[in-house]
């Protein structure tokens, strides 16, 4: 497995970077920018009728795992395809390890890619799929195939037909195939979306372990928060082709840079500013758990519904002027039909001033 690590990163620094990654993630900016291994600089791509990616810049440290998170149509898949070289940007550059690869075709980029539906070659067996990208003498190639398959827990699967594998196994073959030629960067397009929910969590863990073992710089696309938070050291939130915010999951949740991020990452209530002690006429966003039932609260309303969620419950409260608020609290503090008052603990967005 050590050979994988060396090759994938092409030498010094790769391993050292890996260990500290999760810890460093929190500091986001500076450290990453200094040693950015993969840089997206002002990427733009328009398709007839719409702008898919709009002036997108992002830096990824060596060995870091970055998630591109966004709703469908946000441009995340296009960004990934621009990285892989399947699309040519209208503007901007892609730089890896100081080399501008913008004009390199995918076959010369040395970027590994795992496709959403895996794109395993149905006419080749597992071994031939994994060995497809290798330019090695036969002996060395089969050793390499065996080593990579062992790494994804599919040792001695070489002669199996790919069509006879389970979804999770196919996913691991796809991962092994993309890692075998020791790419500089690993790209994953919705890597777990083709698996049924029961399998997803386990596969996600295995995927994370495999990527970390190799220590490869990774960018993956997902529309599921949980997946992005669990797999990504940092998460880049995309919206309408623009990068809204990059940061650790904690940063995104607690300090969203835009109203979109506040609403997309986690749940949020929108309420008039004056109710939260802000300027009248503005709208502020507040998380359900930052609203509190409090007899001294400034907002009056009636509980209309309750959605039980284990450790607590989401209460829907109809406030004056047709405002519907969602409050997270212990599941038994109020009952449906009860008149309540609500206090705002902390405004999520816009930042500044306590709630």
């Amino acid at each position, binding site marked *: 497995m050590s050979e994988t690590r060396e090759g994938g990163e092409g030498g010094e620094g790769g391993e050292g970077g890996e260990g500290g990654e999760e810890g460093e993630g929190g500091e986001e900016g500076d450290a990453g920018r200094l040693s950015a291994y993969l840089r997206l600089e002002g990427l733009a791509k328009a398709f*007839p009728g719409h702008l898919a990616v709009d002036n997108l810049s992002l830096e990824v440290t060596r060995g870091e795992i970055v998630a591109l998170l966004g709703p469908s149509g946000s441009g995340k898949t296009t960004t990934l395809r621009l990285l*892989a*070289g*399947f699309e*040519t940007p209208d503007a901007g550059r892609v730089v890896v390890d100081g080399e501008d690869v913008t004009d390199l*075709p*995918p*076959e*010369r*980029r*040395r*970027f*590994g*890619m795992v*496709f*959403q*539906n895996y*794109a*395993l*070659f*149905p*006419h080749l067996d597992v071994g031939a799929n994994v060995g*497809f*990208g290798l*330019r090695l003498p036969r002996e060395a190639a089969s050793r390499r195939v065996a080593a990579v398959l062992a790494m994804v827990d599919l040792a001695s699967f070489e002669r199996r*037909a790919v*069509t006879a594998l389970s979804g999770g196994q196919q996913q691991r073959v796809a991962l092994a*195939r*993309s890692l075998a*030629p020791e790419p500089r960067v690993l*790209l994953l397009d919705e890597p777990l979306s083709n698996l049924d929910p029961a399998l997803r969590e386990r596969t996600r863990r295995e995927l994370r372990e495999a990527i970390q073992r190799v220590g490869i710089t990774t960018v993956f696309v997902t529309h599921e928060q949980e997946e992005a938070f669990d797999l990504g050291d940092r998460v880049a939130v995309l919206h309408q082709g623009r990068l809204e915010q990059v940061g650790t999951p904690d940063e995104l949740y607690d300090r969203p840079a835009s109203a979109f991020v506040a609403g997309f990452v986690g749940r949020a209530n929108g309420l008039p500013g004056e109710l939260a002690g802000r300027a009248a006429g503005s709208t502020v966003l507040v998380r359900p758990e930052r609203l509190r039932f409090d007899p001294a609260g400034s907002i009056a309303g009636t509980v209309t519904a309750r959605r039980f969620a284990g450790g607590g419950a989401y209460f829907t409260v109809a406030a004056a002027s047709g405002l519907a608020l969602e409050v997270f609290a212990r599941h038994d503090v109020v009952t449906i039909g009860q008149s309540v008052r609500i206090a705002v603990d902390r405004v999520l967005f816009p930042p500044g001033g306590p709630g």
Partner: protein
Amino acid sequence: MRRGRWSAVLLTALLAWLVAGPLAVVFTEAAGADVAAFAREPTEWQALWASLWISAASVALSALLGVPLAFVFERYDFPGRRVLGALVALPAVMPPLVGVIAFYFLYGETGFVSHALQAAFRLDGAPWRLQGPGAILLVHAYSMYVYFYLFVRAALARMDASVLEAAASLGAGGAETFRRVTLPLLRPALAGAALLTFMTSLGSFSAPLLYGGGFRVMTTQIRNTSVNGDQALALLETAVLTTVALLGFALVQWQERRGASVASVGKGTPPALRAIANPFARRAAAAAGWLLAVLLLLPHGTLLLVSFVPVGTWTTEALPPVLALGNYRQMLTEKERLGSLLNSLWMASAATAGAIALALWAGPIVARGRRALGRVIETLLALPWAVPGTVLAVAMATMFSVRAPWLGRFVLVGTVAILPLAYLVRNLPLTGRAVLAGFRQLDPALDEAARSLGAGRWRRLLRITMPLLKPALAAGGALAFVTALGDFVVSVILETYANRPISAQIFSSLRVNELGVAAAFGVVLMVVSAAALGVGARAGGAGDR
């Protein structure tokens, strides 16, 4: 990207030159002919009318035969159903000219059936003459009902049983369900088969040539005018037939786009086969089925038998008195005859390879690109299918009889190159259709996966695209090869002494009354065709895991 665009432009230009060019030349040069004189000539109108009504009648007769057969084989179970179901499609493997001579041996004035009837009823002469529109229609119905049979059977197999059950649960009886559910669902298949039959018989040449006598359709009229030396008039006739064919082509394109929208809503299972319970009915059905099979196989058998009859040994007997291998020996030892066999093989192979290469070139452009050129390329690939063979041959002969390099015209007539080139153009729709369909089913991510693993253009073609397209390549290639191998209509106009193909050899053998030799060539053509189609089907199946 940029490279892809150039490739698309280049392919469009190449196809425009090969496919649209000759047709354009026909129209421009026909404009020089005396159109008024043409319009005043009743024989021209008669020929055009004959082409149209023969085609319409062929559609009706083929539907009458093919549709009930499709229902019987797809809905009922009886002994021998599988074998018979395959045999029923057999007329498809007979090249048109071969089918025509087989009918001649069988039902002609001196054929087996006439002989038998003459002997049985002690008639003075033949009971009928195999000539005129009736004879043409007989051959057409025999060879074209297969379209209806195959299309309707496929549509019935795709039909969801639950749809019929839903109709029943809503209170519709058998007849009402048929009228309001089954028939509308079959409409695309019926329309497709009808148009295919119409177009095929519009371009039909062998049957009208050999059985028409004084009765002329447009294709034979063109040849007659051309043989009589009036090239300008022949071009005008060609232009008229082309116009009719292009109208039909437009109709087919429109129909296919409409047909696509009638696709079934969900996946379903076809209705279970209904077994015939009554033992007497079962046996009757089986007997009828086998009788039908014998009837369908009779032309093939006749051809085989005649091929063993030495020239001049069979005159008035009901069955040939002598059977020997002489005809085959002649075919394989006489230099000219063996030569035509080899000619047909290499020309058909070259034309098929070329047509496959062009289809593979077009595949990614049409299936992946959102480019407008993709549509143009697809249309150009499909167009030769609509063009009757006679038209194509005359058009190619006109285009390539003048040297005008700036218009893409070179002198190829009289050279060995023109015939395989014409075969290639005729093959384009066959390989194009199969390969494009294959490309559309191909997941584009597979090609991208290979790219991201460092595979260049040729490696991807050889290791990913071609293996995955193997079924389509085999099916389209086999069909193209068989069509080129059995071609008569294009060959008879464009052949040169140096590359005379099998069909021309058959035709000239018939003329000098060497029936056995003609039959032997026909048998070889039939066997090679069947083998090619068999290989195509098998390769297709094996690649289809």
